[in-house]
């Protein structure tokens, strides 16, 4: 222990900081809202490989598919209004020619969802989006994830979480955790921040290329703390589209997004269903199982913030996520039984 004088000085200095922190708490510091995260890499450096990477993926080549031909627009947005298909969509002849991987025939390959990884976005020094009133994305995502885990623990699923507390976790570590644990499904929970602030969006992503500047920007932002080198990232991009799991990710995304919207819309009629989209997020690229990233709301809209700070609403989100995952698993398991 330091000499008495030094302890007293330290106490005094710390006390000043405690008081300052509390005064800030009382007056609720206005957050540095849109500044979502600290950069590990400068933005230009990300842009140099992310944008060409996405562009590269958007170019049809043999062996590397441009993805699903049913894409309705350049943003990769798909309507979730239509009923969920109970059987895999059949690839068109064009798809086959372009080398698109065929969806798994569930009747031939018996599948079951046993282990689910829940990934609460951000954490620790990575706050994610921050609302004007100071609510941070990392807090909300963790809370929803813990609620989701509680719900899932009562079901036959085995549930693992990439983080259970407010810890900093590189995206690469999240990916490694999911892969090492041989998960069947990966669900990453996020909260968006977007302009114009009137938007109250719900959207779900699965892995794929996108030339929508807004999505590229979002992916750049979400991928910022990935811990991947450029070479790693390029390797991931090149590998992904040879991977049949994308089809399953798409189905999972559609099921979860539909369930979420139907459930939340009853208490939040202003919620805008922005549907299922493709984007090259690192957690979706690197994981080896059906994986989705759900942006459950936006902290840029204060009414959404009010809802998100209500435990009942977060419980509703968790329950809808649970129901979505469960519906996807049931569909998959049902198809497997038919085939057996």
């Amino acid at each position: 222990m330091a000499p008495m004088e030094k302890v007293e000085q330290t106490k005094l200095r710390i006390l000043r900081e405690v008081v300052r922190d509390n005064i800030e708490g009382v007056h609720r510091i206005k957050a540095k809202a849109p500044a979502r995260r600290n950069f590990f890499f400068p933005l230009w450096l990300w842009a140099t490989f992310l944008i060409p990477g996405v562009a590269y993926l958007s170019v049809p080549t043999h062996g590397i598919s441009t993805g699903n031909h049913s894409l309705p627009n350049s943003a990769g947005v798909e309507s979730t209004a239509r009923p969920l298909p109970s059987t895999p969509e059949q690839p068109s002849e064009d798809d086959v020619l372009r080398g698109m991987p065929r969806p798994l025939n569930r009747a031939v390959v018996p599948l079951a969802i046993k282990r689910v990884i829940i990934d609460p976005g951000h954490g620790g020094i990575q706050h994610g989006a921050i609302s004007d009133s100071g609510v941070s994305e990392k807090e909300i995502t963790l809370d929803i994830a813990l609620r989701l885990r509680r719900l899932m623990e009562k079901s036959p699923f085995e549930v693992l979480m990439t983080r259970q507390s407010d810890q900093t976790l590189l995206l690469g570590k999240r990916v490694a955790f999911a892969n090492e644990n041989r998960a069947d499904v990966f669900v990453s929970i996020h909260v968006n921040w977007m302009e114009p602030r009137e938007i109250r969006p719900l959207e779900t992503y699965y892995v794929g290329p996108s030339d929508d500047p807004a999505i590229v920007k979002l992916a750049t932002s979400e991928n910022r703390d990935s811990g991947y080198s450029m070479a790693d990232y390029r390797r991931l991009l090149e590998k992904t589209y040879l991977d049949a799991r994308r089809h399953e990710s798409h189905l999972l995304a559609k099921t979860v997004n539909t369930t979420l919207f139907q459930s939340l819309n009853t208490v939040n009629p202003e919620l805008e269903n922005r549907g299922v989209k493709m984007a090259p997020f690192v957690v979706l690229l690197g994981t080896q199982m059906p994986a989705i990233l759900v942006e459950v709301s936006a902290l840029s809209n204060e009414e959404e913030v009010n809802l998100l700070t209500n435990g009942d609403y977060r419980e509703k989100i968790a329950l809808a996520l649970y129901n979505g995952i469960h519906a996807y698993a049931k569909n998959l398991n049902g198809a497997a039984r038919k085939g057996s």
Partner: protein
Amino acid sequence: MEESNETLSVGIDLGTSRSSISASNGERHVIDSYVGWPVDIVARKLVKKSVLVGRDALDNRSMLELRRPLERGVIKEGSEKDEEAVQELLRHLISLIGIKQKSKNRPKVRAVVGVPAEAFRISKQRLRRAMDGIADSVMLVSEPFAVAYGLEALLHTLIIDIGAGTADFCVMQGRYPTEQDQRTLPNAGDSIDEQLAKLIREHHPDAQFSIHMIREWKEKWSFVGEPKAQVLVTVPAKGKAAELDITNEMRTACESILPPVCETMIDLLTRVEPEYQEKVRNNVIVSGGSSLIAGLPDALEKALSELGGGRVTVVKDPIFAGSDGGLAIARDATSSDWEKLSL
């Protein structure tokens, strides 16, 4: 520091399971964090009070709408009744130190309240609101920090405060801990209770018990590592009294918190500047109700051996370490500080 007859400093550790208060008039109390309202007029007549708090509430629970209003160390969300219950709890704590809310000569109450290291801002705001009308000025600090301050363990120390709702970690490096210096885990006393109940139910399906019985058993006999004696409890099974040996269940349940606690401890230690890591490793202090689990310091020291060894000690007074630390902060703050923090 600046105390008069007109002011009273208090430190409050508002815990999920127990709450304690330490005041500058020398009073110290601990209560169970339960609040109950009589369910009907008959119950009201029997208990003779409109609201019961602490052990009183627990003992009369069959006649009450019983609330345990704190969850993971903060007010449960989405329930006005729980907010009301926390206010009753706080009012009761303040009354225990001799403060009558409606008295004309009531001194100004300056309160420091401990919250989990990573409590939501929104949860803190809710707590501040709950304190309105009960204290005149309020400061919220992280629970492990309050413990560190009270012990003057401000440099090269890791505090692990394991309560019922959360396990809170805080590395003290001679400065007010930032978010990087702190962690909160949901794996604490309550998760041990849940695990213990689940295991007993699995192994002794006929045994009848309540969560309150589980908590009492845990408080008496919790341990990790080798047991000092068999853990034998008597419970009704199909209506008859039966003696159960729950030694293994107790060990498994208590040890369930070790992996996340050890992992978090090691993670925080490896983030300390390299030249100070050994000092911090040799100065790990455990507090909170769950620090009383027998064998816990040894288990943590075993985990530290992976990093080259370390020393873990349990605070002398785990129940009051948080509230005493809060009181020390409250006393050291100046009147001008408190004015800025008035409600």
